[in-house]
């Protein structure tokens, strides 16, 4: 581990931590009710008590941003986690096992990728009804291939390496090899993949909410806020700015954090 690398972790790390903290602490913060409507003050600009103004229903924007963070982030993290668990497992099996295991996992991943994301979302949402749960399922399925492919490629690359052979020669079991030797060495690219998955999940959630396939209103989510703001673009352009800005900041911070983690953890970039 390098000192310079750790320093790079601090800034994005703290931003991400701050965002997560605010999202988790939302119920404890002195914020107005995010779903209480006040149509008389709809599209109001910043005013005391509502520092970022009101949305098209007169609901407080700041409050919805914070509560929306909870929804959008938890959906994104949980989906990325599920996708990671399933995808990495598939990738490990695919890269490690002999013929049939490898064949089935690689091909089933490819089949998943054949489905256009929006169509998959449409079908699943139509079958199971819209909502955060369905959204997590859809996003997880969409990101399994990403994790699987990266894992598969990395496992193949690592399989023949010296330390693996050495450990095997020392008599280690299959699972020991997999989890203690191989997995830690491919952690770098997997973390990068995780960050990409979370970032993309947040963006896709907004796309699905835009089409009406995402979180069910009146629950706040950044995607829904963007959808609503888009139709009032002429009357209140700032309304579109806030959720986009927060979205961008969050993803930026996450990407930088994961890049920094990669720099620190990935053995290949240790020399320069």
């Amino acid at each position, binding site marked *: 581990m390098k000192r310079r690398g750790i320093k790079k972790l601090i800034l994005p790390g703290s931003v991400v931590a701050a965002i997560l903290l605010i999202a988790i602490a939302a119920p404890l913060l002195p914020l107005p009710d995010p779903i209480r409507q006040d149509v008389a003050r709809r599209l109001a600009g910043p005013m005391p008590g509502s520092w970022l103004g009101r949305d098209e229903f007169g609901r407080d924007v700041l409050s919805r941003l914070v509560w929306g963070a909870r929804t959008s982030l938890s959906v994104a993290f949980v989906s990325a986690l599920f996708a990671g668990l399933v995808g990495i497992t598939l990738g490990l099996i695919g890269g490690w096992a002999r013929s049939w295991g490898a064949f089935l996992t690689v*091909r089933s991943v*490819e*089949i998943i*990728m*054949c*489905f*256009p*994301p*929006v*169509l998959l979302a*449409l*079908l699943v949402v*139509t*079958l199971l009804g819209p909502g955060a749960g369905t959204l997590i399922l859809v996003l997880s399925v969409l990101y399994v291939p990403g994790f699987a*492919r990266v894992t598969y490629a990395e496992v193949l690359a690592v399989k023949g390496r010296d330390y693996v052979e050495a450990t095997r020669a020392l008599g280690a079991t299959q699972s020991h090899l997999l989890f203690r030797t191989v997995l830690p060495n491919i952690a770098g690219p997997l973390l990068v993949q995780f960050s990409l998955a979370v*970032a*993309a999940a*947040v*963006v896709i959630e*907004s*796309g699905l909410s*835009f*089409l009406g396939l995402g979180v069910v209103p009146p629950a706040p989510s950044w*995607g829904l806020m*963007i959808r609503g703001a*888009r139709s009032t*673009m002429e009357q209140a352009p700032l309304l*579109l700015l806030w959720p*986009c800005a927060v*979205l*961008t900041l*969050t*993803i*930026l911070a996450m*990407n*930088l954090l994961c*890049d920094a983690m990669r720099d620190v953890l990935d053995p*290949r*970039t240790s*020399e*320069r």
Partner: protein
Amino acid sequence: MSAGWLGRRLILTLAMAWVVATIVFLALHMVPGDPAELLLSTSGAMPDPATVQELREKLGLDQPLMVQYGHFLAGLARGDLGTSLVDDYPVIQEIALRLPRTLELILAGTLIALAVGVPAGVYAAVHRGGAFDRIASWITALLLAVPVFVVGTLLVLLFAQTLRLMPAGGFTPFAQDPGQHLKLLALPAVAIAKGLAAVLFRMTRAATLDALAHDYVRTARAKGLSPRRTLVVHVLRNALNPVVTVLGLQMGTLLGGTVLVEYVFNWPGLSTPLLRAVEGRDYPMVVGIILTISVLFLLINLLVELLHAAIDPRVQHG
């Protein structure tokens, strides 16, 4: 790379496409919604059940699922994807009409993304940590974060409504008016390119960094090769591999994923009839389009694999 291997891969591709089509066929029939009822209910009309039943029979929807599936397979064997439930238009003709436009959009977007993303990625890697690298990282994150439909709407607002530089979306066939056609292609292609350029930048940067760190680079430098020649001959060749993979993956995914761009810019590609067909439960159209997209996607994957193999041996020797 024998003909046998290729042949087996092709058959595998077709088999997988068939699995996809079957999944979609079954899923569509499980989901609530009756195409006959939906068609007759357009714009708030309220048809009576007898009329709906008449239409169901006319469209063959009242037959058992297995029979309908059988018809579908039989048609597939003939190369016939059936006709739309909405207006009896042959699905194949619809696809033949729409697919080239989506492909054109994806291609244009990819070219723009390649032209911007790859050189930027290489430069950023070579001058790692410099001002360009840092600024580019920020811009990339920005591009990845802002949703494509927001970018699209803003582009239309800026260029069409405010500046009146571009038409507000739509389509003119190339044969009719090439200039107008290209003008209409520009904005949606840029919208598609924005995300792709960001991904390509990151991938190229990472891959170039990887390649730069390898032993053979130091060997080449030690041998006296100039930095530029090292870059081009060795680094780029190795960096190309993962970039090609990512590109192939992205383009394949784009095939079915241009929905939002096509919607916002009114570009009449393949995503639009797909979405409308799912909304209207137009089974033959949905299954036909998905089947086509799957086959194309799998073929692109195959192509990427072939390219891998083609690039790799040369690098070993270099």
